[in-house]
């Protein structure tokens, strides 16, 4: 197990360096003066421009520039936004809100996904299964922002069940609707995955053997079928998290949730590039860390991985 963790962490290093390098490259190796590009459509005065150039070490060789940038990333030093606020501080302030929203969304997703997936997998080909299939396919096809508007319009405005925007401080009850919508954007795939792994597991020899031992159905289903199906579902959580990050940006923007995604959304809309790049960098790092954690969780769930030498 220790070796597995060590190996996984070592593998993450080149990916981490590569990913940050790639982002840096995209921003600073593009045509035109990168310092100028930072200001978008506005034209800065020469003094500010020189300041920016010095700040990003644009007078240094490319690789040195990258190393400076990397150092800044790890100190959460991303410079300041147009309004003069340190980007790192904004990040720290907004992060807990997004974490709460994401946790809530994943919780909803897992509960709905596992329950519905298990039920349709056990009754493959039945009415419930067929209806679920149709709903999942439609759900997969609806882009997240459409889903947000539908939720906002029907559940928030027409039915009045939820507030259609989130109030200051982002209390948990206001987060339920955006979290549900985020969950729904992910859940269809989760249902299908759970369903197919339940069917696959149920067809395994060891399930038959479990019955032959005299075990009751009520024990075989959770202990031998659902437990094993968790492995592929968990593995997929990593990819889900990537979609969740993008989804959070859109959802937080539309529902005005004061989180990381909303800040990114606003920065994109007003073309504030330093903030956009910093936030994307942080999200990518977060994505990498979450994926490492999920790989470790995977090892906990699957002893075959855990004991691989």
């Amino acid at each position, binding site marked *: 197990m220790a*070796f597995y963790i060590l190996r996984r962490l070592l593998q993450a290093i080149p990916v981490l360096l590569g990913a940050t390098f790639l982002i840096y490259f995209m921003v600073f190796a593009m045509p035109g003066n990168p310092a100028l590009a930072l200001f978008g459509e506005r034209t800065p005065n020469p003094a500010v421009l020189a300041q920016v150039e010095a700040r990003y070490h644009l007078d240094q060789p490319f690789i040195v520039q990258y190393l400076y940038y990397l150092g800044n990333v790890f100190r959460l030093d991303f410079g300041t936004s147009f309004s003069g606020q340190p980007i790192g501080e904004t990040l720290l302030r907004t992060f807990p809100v997004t974490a709460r929203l994401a946790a809530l969304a994943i919780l909803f997703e897992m509960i709905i996904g596992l329950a519905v997936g298990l039920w349709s997998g056990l009754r493959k080909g039945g009415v419930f299964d067929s209806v679920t299939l149709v709903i999942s396919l439609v759900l997969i096809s609806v882009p997240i922002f459409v889903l947000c508007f539908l939720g906002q319009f029907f559940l928030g405005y027409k039915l009045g069940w939820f507030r259609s925007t989130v109030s200051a401080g982002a209390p948990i009850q206001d987060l339920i609707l955006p979290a549900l919508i985020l969950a729904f954007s992910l859940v269809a795939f989760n249902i299908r995955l759970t369903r197919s792994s339940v069917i696959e597991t149920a*067809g*395994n*020899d*060891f399930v*038959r*053997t*479990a*019955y*032959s*031992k*005299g*075990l*009751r*159905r009520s*024990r075989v289903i959770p*202990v*031998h079928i659902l*437990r*094993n199906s968790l*492995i592929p579902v968990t593995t997929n959580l990593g990819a889900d998290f990537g979609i969740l990050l993008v989804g959070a940006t859109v959802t937080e923007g539309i529902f005005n949730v004061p989180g990381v995604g909303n800040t990114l959304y606003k920065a994109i809309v007003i073309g504030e590039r330093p903030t956009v790049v910093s936030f994307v960098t942080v999200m990518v790092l977060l994505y990498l860390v979450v994926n490492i954690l999920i790989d470790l969780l995977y090892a906990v*769930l*699957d*002893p*075959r991985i855990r*004991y691989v*030498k």
Partner: protein
Amino acid sequence: MNAAAASTADAPLLQVRNLHVGFRTQNGVVKALNGVDLTLHEGETVAIVGESGSGKSTTAAAIINLLPGSGQITEGEVLFQGRDLAKASPRELEDIRGRLIGYVPQDPMSNLNPVWSIGFQVEETIRANGLATGKKEVRAKAIEVLEQAGLADADQRLRQFPHQFSGGMRQRVLIGIGLAASPRLLIADEPTSALDVTVQRRILDHLATLTEDAGTAVIFITHDLGLAAERAKKLIVMYKGKIVESGPSVEILQNPQHPYTQRLIAAAPSLASRRIAFSGQELGSIEHVAANESDKVDLITAAERRVENLDAKPSESVIVVDHLTKNFKIRQGGFRSTEFTAVDDVSFSIAKGTTMALVGESGSGKSTVAKLLLKLEDATSGTITINGTDVASLKGRALLNLRSRMQPVFQDPYGTLDPLHNIGNTIAEPLKTHGVGTRNERRDRVFELLDQVSLPRVIAGRYPNELSGGQRQRVAIARALALKPEIVILDEAVSALDVLVQAQILRLLADLQGELGLTYLFITHDLAVVRVIADNVCVMQRGRIVEAATTDEVFDNPKQAYTRELLDAIPGAGIQMGV
């Protein structure tokens, strides 16, 4: 009706009457069992024998009502201690399974849940059947069960997971689970088919001791007639969902009545090697209803023909292998790696037109030797000389030339042919690669080859998935022969086939050898087959050749203890065929 009348006064333990089982598919119900009857008394052991698709495993599954997928009992009854299991409620079945009827499945690799420890899986059986309560008691019972099943250090191994166990050990765990509740009946569905012969023998001996001591009745399912007769006094032969013959084992072997049984006995290599030992005694009326010429397969006749062919040949070595060694690097925990010697200082030579068998259990290095010969792997040291040329340095044209003189046939009939190429193209591919002939000439050669392996010519336009395993192996043989090689390397080429098909292919190989003067290297784990096909034998164990001699010497006068163990483990070796 089965004529097995009650031999004791008391009622039978299990009585299956007119059992019909069907599987629902898109094209309607496919019948798997067509009226099976069987009676089993307390403490009795009966063996069900048949080829794949005969319905033997379906019978076993139907008894405990655990038919896979869409399987359903459509007619008949399964009376166990007077209760009809075909109509029992799920609850009743759950109570009977494990407690009264134990089950040992076929494949030890797939029948334990990989995510739970061995201890967990034994303990849940104990709890479900109420054999013990309380954490400590259950644990103690689990250790007892595993120790009884022959797992020496059970208490230390409870926390380990299935993948940390060898196949034999897992099978012992499954036997322990099956017998945990001391059931009245044990159903063992090919319990050792996936294991090496020596392991198989030890485990079956152990199983027999356990069930005899406890007076457990056993239904033993196997594809191996020799094994069945050795392990059970009573034999049931199944064919296409029906029982064709049943009765006392020895009597059936000595005096088979149904033509199918006769065929099966004639084709079983394990029995054939016994019969050769008893001076080729012939079976009475084997041919009386054989459908056509190619079905009349008697391995003894095939073996005799081979000996005749051999006598007429000069002995000139085609293949000389000298001090061949192959090391593999294996990653160990951490970043270290150790060397593993798969082939260790192996030397042998094969004379032109003869068959040399390389025999060994899994992991003995026999298949690595094949890969080295075919130059699919490079040797660490030692030399391989084919027709006087050292193959180590061959490249380009010369290597291509070598390839045309030496061709392989592999084990898995389902992997040996590219599923997307039709049979004609598959057989023609070697010709095309070597630039032999025009399009039309190649087509004619394909037809000629199909004739040689007794396949209809229309097959050329068809794809592998339309063929059976045996037919695919024929195509693989045709492809191997396309370039008119001198040497064919047969790597477990008949191991995955049913006995009758196996016998058919063995005969085809013998015929082709006589006709074309081929030299065979025949790699197998099955010593019984060796007797009917090989002239010389090398026995491999852990990368080394431990014994090399002519086939007759190895069988009649084995020098090494390991060879003797292998010989004793041939199923059916203990049966006295009527002398």
